[in-house]
């Protein structure tokens, strides 16, 4: 399903790159803006299916993009927002996650270079899913080092991918495993971490993230 995506990015080069990429995957970009106030205006005007924004943007050149994203989500918690950041800042990711369940993503800008993966992530967020950068997940996992230590290396990998918002099929593809094997690992993770076993799909991602974040 083609999406209407608003792109907010202050680098002209990147803006063109992102627009071209979305275009290549059949989505449309009704507005591509270069600063936070323009982003807020464009969203009000266009009612897009997805907002794609950089963290550092004018006018403040600090985290203006992130703050605009949080503000947008506060007024409309169902608005899908995918934030791109130059660095992984767990605090920023958490601020986004706190704005509501699902339809939210936080990725390192570098991931855009994997165009296929990036387009899939954008579509997942637009469909109400949660996408978290692997680096953020790793930081969250490290923070809960002790209980995570009970997991086998393979189960750790599965946990990482679940927290990033991947489905069982995607996990199977990434780790080159059968669906049945992935199912087994997922069940093991849920048992060992004492998570609700009936959680599936998006609720599963939220359960994993909630567990990881509760370790502070």
């Amino acid at each position, binding site marked *: 399903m083609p999406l209407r995506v608003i792109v907010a990015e202050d*680098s002209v*080069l990147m803006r063109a*790159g992102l627009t071209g990429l979305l275009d*290549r995957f059949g989505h449309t970009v009704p507005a591509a803006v270069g600063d936070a106030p323009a982003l807020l205006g464009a969203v009000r005007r266009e009612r897009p299916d997805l907002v794609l924004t950089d963290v550092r943007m004018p006018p403040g050149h600090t985290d203006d993009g992130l703050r605009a994203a949080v503000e947008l989500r506060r007024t409309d918690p169902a608005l899908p927002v995918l934030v791109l950041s130059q*660095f992984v800042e767990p605090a920023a990711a958490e601020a986004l996650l706190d704005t509501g369940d699902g339809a939210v993503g936080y990725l390192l800008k*570098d991931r*855009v270079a994997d*165009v296929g993966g990036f387009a899939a992530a954008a579509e997942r967020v637009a469909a109400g899913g949660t996408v978290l950068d692997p680096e953020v997940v790793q930081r969250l996992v490290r923070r809960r080092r002790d209980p995570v230590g009970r997991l086998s290396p393979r189960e750790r990998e599965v946990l990482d991918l679940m927290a990033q918002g991947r489905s069982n099929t995607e996990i199977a593809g990434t780790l080159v495993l059968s669906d049945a094997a992935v199912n087994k690992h997922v069940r093991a993770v849920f048992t060992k971490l004492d998570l609700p076993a009936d959680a599936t799909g998006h609720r599963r991602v939220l359960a994993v993230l909630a567990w990881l974040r509760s370790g502070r």
Partner: protein
Amino acid sequence: MRIASAWQAMDQQPLRFLATGWPWRSLGYLVSGAALGTVVVGAFAIPASGLVLGGPVTAVATAVLLVAGVLAVGPWLAALERWRLRLVDDEPLRPPPDPPGRATGRWRSGRAWRETGFAALSVTGLAGLDACVLGFAVVVPVVLFASPVDDPATWPLVIIGVLVLAAGPWTVAAWAGARATLTRTVLGPRGAELGAGLADVAAIRERLLGAFETERARIERDLHDGAQQRLVALGVSLGLARLDAGEDTALAARLDDARDQVSAALTELRDLVRGLDPRMLADHGLAAAVDDQARRCPIPVTVDLRLPERLPPHVASAAYFVLTEALTNVSRHSAATTATVSGRWHADQVVLDVRDDGRGGADPAAGSGLAGLAERVALVDGRLRLSSPDGGPTLVHVEIPCRFA
């Protein structure tokens, strides 16, 4: 090497020292010190008798007069002590510059109180010690030499006398040097009194540190807005081209390869920029920032920092830089399997240690960043020491002065 003081002479050439003028100069210093003490204490002792001999009114008046007398001669005696110092130390001791303003400025700045206090100590306790040392080094041998005159059976005492007399020059010079050092410490300029020269150095250091921070921020911004964005955009272009190239073609393989290289370049650039931009440090403090760096290290790093919560910013910044760079060196060059970072604060110093169990042989001259580290540490008056024998382990030890005002 030019020898400028009795202590130096004794330390540099312990035997030739005897043939120089230093033992005699030291002797003169102690004799004049003891004599000065005797004269001054005597001069005060005569009126002080009024304290016990007269009635209460006389006692109070005498006490007031004594205090006034001490305050009057204190700074003058201090000047005399500075002048006398020339006997055992060729380096002149200049008095601190007079504070601007009224004549009471010296008292208000604390300088005159310091001088008076030291003068009082000098003519009493220190002069007494002068006398004791002279007594031990000169009088005791004379007494020992004289003892067989009365009783020939005590002749072995002469041997002891010879030994004590032989040690005399060093004994005398040792105490003279100690007394001179004390004089220099108390009566010399300190802090703000050090004058324009040192203040200039401090200002230049401030400017250098400021320029360092500004430049770092500029480079970080340039990389972020320039190279990093271009590389990501390049990655996107390559990725799109890869989609057009289809599967299993030679072009597709080359594009995959190019994309991997762009990813690697981005990762390296990101690490570099992060090193330049310690936002983590500013937002979460040294402990959290170092912990974060340690977790990025490819090998397990144990972090044990026990430092005050709020370090002065220039100390925290230098410490962060040092620990980050040292850890980068560990992961790049050491082939270590584990590393330890520790930090302590004691005796007005922040002491940092980075240890690893790698192959050692780190050489600051080989451009491993250690020279830059040492410079960065020197900028905050600290020092860096390195122990890295071939075969390991390597220890980088850093001390940074850190006082809380």
